[in-house]
């Protein structure tokens, strides 16, 4: 089964310098391991919501807005698409993602 991992961080959580410094390496290691196991199919970190543009079409008019679709403390900082046998495996993969220890990972099954 395919799952999307939405990697969410909470802007109110302040990381220590040590955590910040170690994050790229820890994430790289996680990516390497899941890629190597044939679990991770795709994924990327995302630019912050300050770089986001929201698009709506109403009465044939394209309406644009600066910023995310919802103003929340939790922001999607990245995503990964993984292929797993079942939810238990997906939970295990998500729980090993370095962001899980301070942020939130939402595990969403693909519609299929």
């Amino acid at each position: 089964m395919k799952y999307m991992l939405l990697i969410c961080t909470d802007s109110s959580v302040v990381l220590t310098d040590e955590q910040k410094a170690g994050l790229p390496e820890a994430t790289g290691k996680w990516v390497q391991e899941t890629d190597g196991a044939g679990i991770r199919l795709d994924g990327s970190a995302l630019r912050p919501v300050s770089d986001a543009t929201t698009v709506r079409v109403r009465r044939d008019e394209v309406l644009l807005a600066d910023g995310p679709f919802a103003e929340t403390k939790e922001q999607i900082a990245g995503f990964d698409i993984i292929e797993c046998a079942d939810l238990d495996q997906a939970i295990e993969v998500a729980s090993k993602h370095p962001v899980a220890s301070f942020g939130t990972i939402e595990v969403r099954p693909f519609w299929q």
Partner: protein
Amino acid sequence: MTGPSSAGPGPDADVAGAVDEAFRSEWGKVVAAVIGQTGDWDLAEECAQDAFARALRTWPRDGVPRRPGAWLTTVARNRALDLLRRRSTEAVKLEQSARLAPEPEGDDMDGEDIADDRLRLIFTCCHPALPLEARVALTLRTLAGLTTAEIAKAFLTAEPTMAKRLVRAKAKIRNAGIPYRVPPAHLLPERTSGVLAVLYLLFNEGYTASAGQRLVRHDLCDEAIRLARALAGLMPDEPEATALLALMLFHHARRAGRTNAAGEVITLENQDRSLWDQDQIGEGTALLATAARRQRPGQYLIQAGIAQCHATAPTAAETDWTAIARLYGMLARLVPSAVVELNRAVAVGMADGPAAGLALVDQLAGSGQLDGYYLLPATRADLLRRLGRPAEAADSYRDALGLVVNEAERRYLATRLAEAEIGSTTPPGGC
């Protein structure tokens, strides 16, 4: 709870009784087997219902089969194959399920050995990715065979709300890929304690109904015991499953003594111990001895040990409070919790006197961890009463009354408050 039949006295009454009996003991097994075969939860419930309906029709004529569970499972599985065959779009699935489940040869349906899938079903119903209330409802529906209406009534919820909860849970199992299996070894301890927690929650919901007029709903307790008994049988190497069953039996054994005819709470020390169910206490004691042999004291083993101390004391005065205080100490180290500390304070108050208990309670109150929990002021009030400080006791009873939810417990506290108020206005030496 209610079986599929309600035949009065007559020649068919025995058969109807056998169907009812089979319903209680076999429903979960039949549903579990069909889910294992087809992966379809709704189909499994439908086919289990059909199998019991057919038993009601054919058993009076043909007699009760030698192994009713195997008979019912085979009928339900064949029914599932029939239904799947009719769904043309399910042709592929049919191929798979037909391979999974060879039809029994000949008419001797009793002869087929059917693996017990209930353990897979229990672990799936209690999967931590489902909301807790859905785990409880799903367990009652699929394993115990309660109807949606019965579950809604037991939890004082509207039937459509409960139906929606069950539909959502089953959809999530299917769509999110929650596996239908007993978890692998590295997940088993954690998931097992999750299953035990659901069963204990179910029992406690029956034991101290969180809302409503009556203190105890025996039907929920009976279902919880039945499920715990099944789990202990399916996991003979898991002492905590056996210990949980023992714990439930010790509590349930005291049910007749816990309230009076008016539904008022009778405290443990004032209960008529001749009303306690000695058979259940005996069974609990034997189970506890078996579980304790593993020498791996888990939280249910310790709690069962505490419940046993109470259940086997000939009189309230002979209760071994020193042992109980020691067990609560063990429990607090294993699962640190302010509620456990409060119970330890009660036990210490009995073993070493109310002053020692009060010191622990005040320490807990100071920590603020139990703010809003009515048993904290209720316990404090009781210790103050025993120390002969009725005015302070009355204050604490008032605090407790402001927090209590259950009506029967509210009445108990109100009575005690009235006594304390009289006590605080009576000069020393008065009656």
